[in-house]
């Protein structure tokens, strides 16, 4: 069976028949954008750029340095965004492998092709969330947003970058506010998916969400979530993490997750959900 047929099946059953997850995600984005616009209004800022809004949604929060008087600022929107995406991509693969997918696998004559199709499904599914995020941001910004990914001077009122903010932080950072969050979501979601081949989905979700939570708490390149936060990027703040290292890290995780999945699926027991 060709990979194309599997992908077609996964797009139909794993995306088109589960459009409600995009609806739930859309609600999250709409509420978040309204919240952003309300915050701008409270600072009496009328105009903003699409880049500002995306930075607010996906940019995370400043580094937390434990010291007297410093309160940990949880990057709620960043966290909810990733936890939602991870949750919505959690069960499909496991359900397929323990259900209808078994009939597809033995008919296809190969296990690896099934896995590769799931990886492609995962990338398409995750990208879909961000495409929806961008579309909603554009639609809700028609009246008072500039359609540019440049970030405005006044955004530091809305997103707290801390005292490490660079002088020239309004430079073009499209890569940091858009590509890195997408790559992070794809990487962590693929990692989670490969873990579901070994463990129950709930355990995989605990692992992936723990990476997100710990990344929010501590700024270190080892906790890869930091690379996806523009508010912790070295283009914006002085002691931030590098985009290039982020891209390399995410690419390694993506490739490793696919390879690990191939190795597991070739040998694993395909059993019913029991």
């Amino acid at each position: 069976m060709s990979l194309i047929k599997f992908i077609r099946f996964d797009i139909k059953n794993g995306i088109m028949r589960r459009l409600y997850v995009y609806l739930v995600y859309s609600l999250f984005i709409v509420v978040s954008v309204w919240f952003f616009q309300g915050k701008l209004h409270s600072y009496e800022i009328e105009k903003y750029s699409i880049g500002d809004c995306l930075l607010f949604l996906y940019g995370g929060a400043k580094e937390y340095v434990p010291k007297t008087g410093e309160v940990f600022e949880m990057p709620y929107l960043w966290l909810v965004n990733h936890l939602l995406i991870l949750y919505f991509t959690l069960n499909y693969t496991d359900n397929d492998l323990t259900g209808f997918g078994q009939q597809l696998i033995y008919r296809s004559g190969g296990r690896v092709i099934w896995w590769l199709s799931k990886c492609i499904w995962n990338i398409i599914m995750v990208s879909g969330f961000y495409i929806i995020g961008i579309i909603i941001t554009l639609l809700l910004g028609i009246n008072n947003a500039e359609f540019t990914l440049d970030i405005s001077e006044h955004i530091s009122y809305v997103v707290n970058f801390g005292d490490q903010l660079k002088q020239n932080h309004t430079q073009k950072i499209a890569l940091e506010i858009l590509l890195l969050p997408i790559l992070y979501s794809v990487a962590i979601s693929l990692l989670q998916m490969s873990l579901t081949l070994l463990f129950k989905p709930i355990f995989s979700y605990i692992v992936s969400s723990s990476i997100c939570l710990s990344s929010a708490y501590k700024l270190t390149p080892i906790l890869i979530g930091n690379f996806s936060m523009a508010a912790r990027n070295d283009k914006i703040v002085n002691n931030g993490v590098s985009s290039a290292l982020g891209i390399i890290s995410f690419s390694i995780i993506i490739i490793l997750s696919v390879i690990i999945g191939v190795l597991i699926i070739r040998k694993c027991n395909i059993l019913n959900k029991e």
Partner: protein
Amino acid sequence: MSIVLKNVTKKIGRNMIINDVSCNIENGSITGFKGINGSGKTMLLRLISGLIYPTSGTVEIDKKILGKDIAFPESIGIMLENPSFINSYSGYDNLRMLADIKGLIDEDRICEVMDLVGLKENGNKKYRKFSLGMKQRLGIAAAIMEKPGIILLDEPTNALDESGVKLLTEIIIAERNRGATIILSSHDAQFLNKTSNRIIEISNGKITNERNNYDI
């Protein structure tokens, strides 16, 4: 297609599910695995299907080792306990989706099989609205529709009424006459006696008794 199990052992975690099972299953025969729930019948079928691989020992299909030479038997139809289909699709659409993978059969054959298992009238009904017996019939239809060389049916009489069991028996005999190698697992001795050339009794993952059924 011939099937040879050589010293097959399967452990899952610390549980020994199948313990050193060896047997030859001849081409074009009907073999019945008989045993109580949890005896290891379903696991043996999964091992033969290639959905799981043995911890030790080998399963050979036409002299090709599963998991080494081939991932799955080249021509196989499987109905394992509680067959899974897509709830929001009709029975017909579920079969069409499966048939699309190999592209061996056309829509006429799908209709023919739906008719054969007694689902012609309900072909366009959503799977979620199927009764247990109808789900079982659809599982059987999926297993036989592509005229595979090997057919594995796990507890095929589950949820079937008397007429359903009679129909199933006729289908199994017809498939055997076509040349398929058929393996059944059931706790229903009467059904196995009516269909199987050979009956292998399984208990605690081991073969405890084996006999030819000369009535068939």
